[in-house]
């Protein structure tokens, strides 16, 4: 393997009362790849994201990003360290415009405080300009120019998903974790999304992708891991996964296309 491992997930276990949502998950994600995470409903995919991003504490195990351990850090420090995410059930800042949503994403890489905000000295004005410029270019990057001045809650479903990606990119992540970005998208939107993900990978950002659209995952990902009832049942290239009997059984005996 030429590519270096950027994120190391080791022995992550999470129980909710008696329910074992994840058990002893090991994943190694290489820099610059699109890593797909699939599995039936309730397999524990979102739970893993919540642990990586600091929303849940793991019962056991650790997670490292570029050899820095991030397990049990609060969410904002994990973002600062370079892991950003989107949500399965879209969580935008509804009354803010699209542009403002992305500007919030710039928060973690900027630092003007109360005094700067009130006095608006040169440094503060320049930083604010930088934030605006970056937000505009990210809006452009995900192709949302037409609707960036609208309140986020009024955008179409597909646009909201792309806006969430732009907002996450604004935190300048090394790894971006996308939780079902194609959910609820029509075929045109899905193919636009695919192009966007390829572009993000080309720009050197590693993508961790949860997705139910198997065609999208198989066509796009460099590596795929399959979870079932909190257990990793397979990991490999898309073609290996497709022919893995365990995987086929997990998907209710159905064929993986």
């Amino acid at each position, binding site marked *: 393997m030429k590519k270096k491992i950027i994120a190391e997930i080791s022995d992550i276990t999470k129980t909710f009362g008696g329910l074992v949502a994840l058990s002893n998950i090991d994943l190694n994600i290489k820099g610059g790849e699109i890593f797909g995470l699939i599995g039936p409903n309730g397999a524990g995919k979102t739970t893993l994201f919540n642990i990586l*991003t*600091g*929303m849940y504490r793991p019962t056991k195990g650790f997670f490292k990003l570029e050899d820095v351990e991030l397990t049990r850090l*609060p*969410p*904002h420090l994990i*973002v*600062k360290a370079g892991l*950003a*995410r989107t*949500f399965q059930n879209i*969580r*935008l*800042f*509804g*009354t*803010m415009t699209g542009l*403002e949503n992305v*500007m*919030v*994403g*710039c*928060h*973690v890489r*900027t630092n*003007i*405080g*109360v005094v*700067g*905000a*009130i006095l*608006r000295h040169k440094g*503060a004005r320049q*930083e*604010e300009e930088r*934030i605006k410029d970056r937000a505009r270019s990210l809006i452009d990057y995900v192709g949302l120019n037409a609707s960036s001045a609208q*309140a986020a809650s009024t955008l179409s479903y597909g646009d909201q998903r792309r806006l969430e990606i732009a*907002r*996450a990119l*604004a*935190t300048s992540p090394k790894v971006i974790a996308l939780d079902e970005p194609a959910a609820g998208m029509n075929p045109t939107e899905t193919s636009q999304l695919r192009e966007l993900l390829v572009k993000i990978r080309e720009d050197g950002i590693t993508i961790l992708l949860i997705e139910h659209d198997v065609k999208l995952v198989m066509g796009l990902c460099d590596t795929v891991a399959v979870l079932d009832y909190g257990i990793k049942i397979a990991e490999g290239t898309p073609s290996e996964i497709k022919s893995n009997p365990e995987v086929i059984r997990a998907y209710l005996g159905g064929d993986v296309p």
Partner: protein
Amino acid sequence: MSKLFLMFFGGRKNPVWVGYVFITVALIILPFLVEASMGRTWVRILDFALIYAMLALGLNIVVGFAGLLDLGYIAFYAVGAYTWALLASPQFGLHLPFWAIIPIGFVVAGIFGVLLGAPTLRLRGDYLAIVTLGFGEIVRIFLNNLDHPINITNGPVGINLIDPIQIAGVSLTKSHEILGLEFSGAHSYYYVLLFLLLATVFVCIRLENSRLGRAWVAIREDETAAQAMGINTRNVKLLAFAMGASFGGIAGGMFASFQGFVSPESFILLESIMVLCMVVLGGMGNIWGVILGTFLLAILPEVLRDVSGPIQENVLGRVWLDPESLRMVLFGLALILVMLLRPSGLWPKR
């Protein structure tokens, strides 16, 4: 006439400053117009409206921007008022000048904001409201009881003979004649309060359109998502509590010096709710809406008090409903109507 109106407001050729000059002149002569048309009590009512506006703008940072429902906000008003009262009255024999007390009150109230905010950081919604309500009451009960073992606050009696603002040895509560115009205490305070209110508005606008203002709104909209965007929600929320409390503290100090007297009775729960009503009625999160809400709630009840008696006498022959209780009934009715018809306030943000 319409031409004149156009010149001020509509004419595209006119620079914006014409409008500003007009507004400035109007604000400067306002107390004299009010006194001439309605009497001096109304200048005092106007002054209290300005104090309330400052208070409401402070609460708007906490509730309107950051979405933290604080039902004990009046505590910071109390802290500001007592800070002034203790530092400039015969109580301890201290008589600090106003330019020292205003910043002290700002900081002390801000510290209280952080102290009372810190334990509530994990609470959301209703739970936050209940705990802050409790804190507000605790502060008032302390003020009520800190007359023993050592007498600090004078207990329920309150503190009297508080120094007014003095500029170059001249007390602002006395009447002065300048250029043939009589400036009563209410007039002089009007200008001080107007200045402080404008400063508050300025700071609020700057904060709103900044990295921090956006972080506050993000927390209001979705705290989890805000964390996931790298916002240190703990610090940013504490900052909202501190900033809101500080403005409440300044308003409280002005209240103490203007009245010359404070007692715990002025800081009951109903006052917290009143200020919250001003914010909600006007339009949470919108600075101009909050000011509108404040003026409506500070002034309309007084108007009602003035007119409801005479109207009843003229129309019904005698006063059937005591103006004071009628005032509260109509007040409640108006709030219900507004919430039904314009749930996001009279002048909402967007």
